């Protein structure tokens, strides 16, 4: 491959994967999950323009996605009832512009400072608009939200977007466009200086750049792409409610971005995919999946602040040194007790939860294919014992694992 084409390779692969996916996962449920993923990826990438690229922590970014979405539902309704001519595939552009518009208003006062103050303002503005959604019924539709019908617009190449699959491809194309645009933005002077201001705002000012204006630009760009995500949400679900604006949604995008790794461009993408899968799968099997997510999130912040992508990235050095094989055996040795510990901990939580909350008289529960009485102490003791055993095994493996890790990262020959 020539050098000029090399940077394009990941994009080509991504486009190919997006094109092929519906043939592998063709069911309606799978398409719904994939659409959800595409929307979440765009939103998380937009969010990371603030958090990762610009060092701005927002607790209210759902607002820009939500506003873009609400606006697009109204656009769909105008198309349906008021003869507005607007092909559906262009809708995300207008959602983006609406998000941009509000970001420009809020950004004028919120980007004065980064850090804590920015975070508090974003929270206050986010709550303000979420609270307004109950009051301003004409735009937000009150408690029940606003809904529309995406199929009423002019057809494009004979497509009316009634099927999930057509919506999927529309989302996928907008995903590629948005991701590419956000990546390219990070390579422009405005994008580079966003990094510079994040790392050292004082130095950036003495190089001729106003930190406030650099942040303002990142904020607006982020609002634009969040609006695009909102528009795709509107197209996909045809309804928006207060839930699209509130703190829970703003919080989950922070969680997704941080889990994936805010320091990497690809971090939010990995975070969105993993989070959507976890959410879908875990919520099928357990009622307390949000507890697991909470534990995972806090553990990530404390122990792996560079996120999942960071965990992958630290293996590049051993890989480039040709020593990745040094790690195979230690990983295999800790894999089993680590898995055992995770299962044991989950069992303790599940048993305790069932014992406390199951309906009166319902004492039978099943876990990992086993059926037993949750009120009996034996299962709990068994789970605790398994956990203790695994911790003991892990502690035994730890020194040799650490040794192997140092060895794998050591540039010289066998030390």
């Amino acid at each position, binding site marked *: 491959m020539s050098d000029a084409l090399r940077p394009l390779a990941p994009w080509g692969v991504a486009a190919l994967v997006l094109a092929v996916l519906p043939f592998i996962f063709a069911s309606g449920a799978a398409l719904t999950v994939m659409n959800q993923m595409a929307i979440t990826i765009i939103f998380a990438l937009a969010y990371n323009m603030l958090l990762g690229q610009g060092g701005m922590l927002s607790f209210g970014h759902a607002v820009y996605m939500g506003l873009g979405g609400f606006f697009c539902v109204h656009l769909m309704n105008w198309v349906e009832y008021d003869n507005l001519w607007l092909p559906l595939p262009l809708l995300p552009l207008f959602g983006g512009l609406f998000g941009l518009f509000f970001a420009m208003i809020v950004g004028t006062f919120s980007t004065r400072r980064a850090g804590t103050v920015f975070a508090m303002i974003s929270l206050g503005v986010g709550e303000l608009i979420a609270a307004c959604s109950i009051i301003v019924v004409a735009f937000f539709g009150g408690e029940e939200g606003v809904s529309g019908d995406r199929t009423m617009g002019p057809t494009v190449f004979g497509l009316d977007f009634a099927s999930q699959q057509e919506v999927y491809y529309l989302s996928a194309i907008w995903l590629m466009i948005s991701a590419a645009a956000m990546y390219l933005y990070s*390579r422009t002077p405005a994008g580079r200086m966003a990094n510079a201001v994040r790392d050292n705002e004082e130095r950036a*000012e003495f190089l001729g750049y106003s930190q406030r204006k650099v942040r303002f630009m990142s904020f607006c760009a982020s609002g634009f792409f969040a609006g695009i995500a909102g528009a795709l949400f509107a197209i996909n679900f045809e309804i928006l409610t207060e839930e699209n604006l509130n703190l829970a949604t703003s919080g989950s995008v922070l969680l997704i971005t941080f889990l994936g790794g805010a320091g990497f461009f690809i971090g939010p993408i990995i975070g969105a995919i993993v989070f959507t899968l976890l959410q879908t799968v875990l919520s099928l099997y357990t009622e307390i999946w949000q507890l697991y997510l909470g534990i995972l999130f806090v553990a990530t912040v404390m122990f792996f602040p560079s996120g999942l992508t960071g965990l992958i990235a630290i293996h590049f050095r051993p890989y480039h040194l040709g020593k990745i094989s040094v790690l195979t055996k230690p990983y295999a040795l800790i894999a089993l007790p680590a898995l055992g510990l995770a299962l044991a901990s989950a069992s303790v939580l599940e048993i305790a939860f069932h014992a406390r909350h199951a309906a009166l008289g319902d004492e039978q529960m099943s876990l990992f294919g086993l059926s037993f009485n949750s009120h009996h102490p034996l299962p709990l003791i068994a789970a605790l014992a398994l956990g203790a055993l695994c911790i003991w095994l892990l502690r035994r493996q730890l020194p040799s694992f650490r040794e192997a890790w140092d060895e794998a990262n050591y540039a010289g020959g066998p030390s």
Partner: protein
Amino acid sequence: MSAPAAIELEGLSKSFGRVEIIRDVTLAIAKGERHAIIGPNGAGKSTLFNLITGKYHPTDGRVRLNGEAVDQLKPYEINRRGLSRSFQITNIFPRMSVFENIRCGLLWAMEYKYSFWHLVDRQPDLTRRTEEILSEINMSDKRDTLAGVLTYAEQRALEIGITIAGGADIIMLDEPTAGMSASETEYIVGLIRKVTESKTLVVVEHDMGVVFDLADRISVLVYGEIIASDTPENVRASAAVQEAYLGTALEEEA
């Protein structure tokens, strides 16, 4: 005098609360001059620096840059008028490569400003100019190293590189050799001499050897006041300076 001075301070004062750190400083630094500011610890050298570069605004008095009053401007506005500074504590972008550090210093000066339609990697002029500066500060081989992992002396050299990158006419360096060994100091002084050729240089420095080696003119700041501003020879000979400062400084060195 026909052309205005590069930097002109007129009755400059700065108080923090009730404490007056800079008192009625008046000073003119001509274009192309190499000017050093010396003085004992706590004399207000860094404060004076921060007043000139817009980090602080004066309580009273004027700062003029090439004849234009700049004392109410923001740091970035002053930078755009052709003044660039370095910091006493190393102030670089630690999570960026050496190359990117220098490039950040170039962006504004090369008119890229807040552009979001140029790709920085596709600008041959930008890349070429960055590489020229890298070779000027002898760091071409560190091109792709993260700035945060450089040695202290390398970081100081990089900081000077960032400072001069934009091509500012007035360069202000705040203790460029602080914390360096003798050989490192010698190297940095040579570097400063080279990269500030034909520019106005203002430097705050503790190392008397460096000061007398580098400067055309020296101002002595004691308790926020300038007690002398003259050629190195005259400053060295001045009884007032001897009494107020140099004596103790030389004793310290001995």
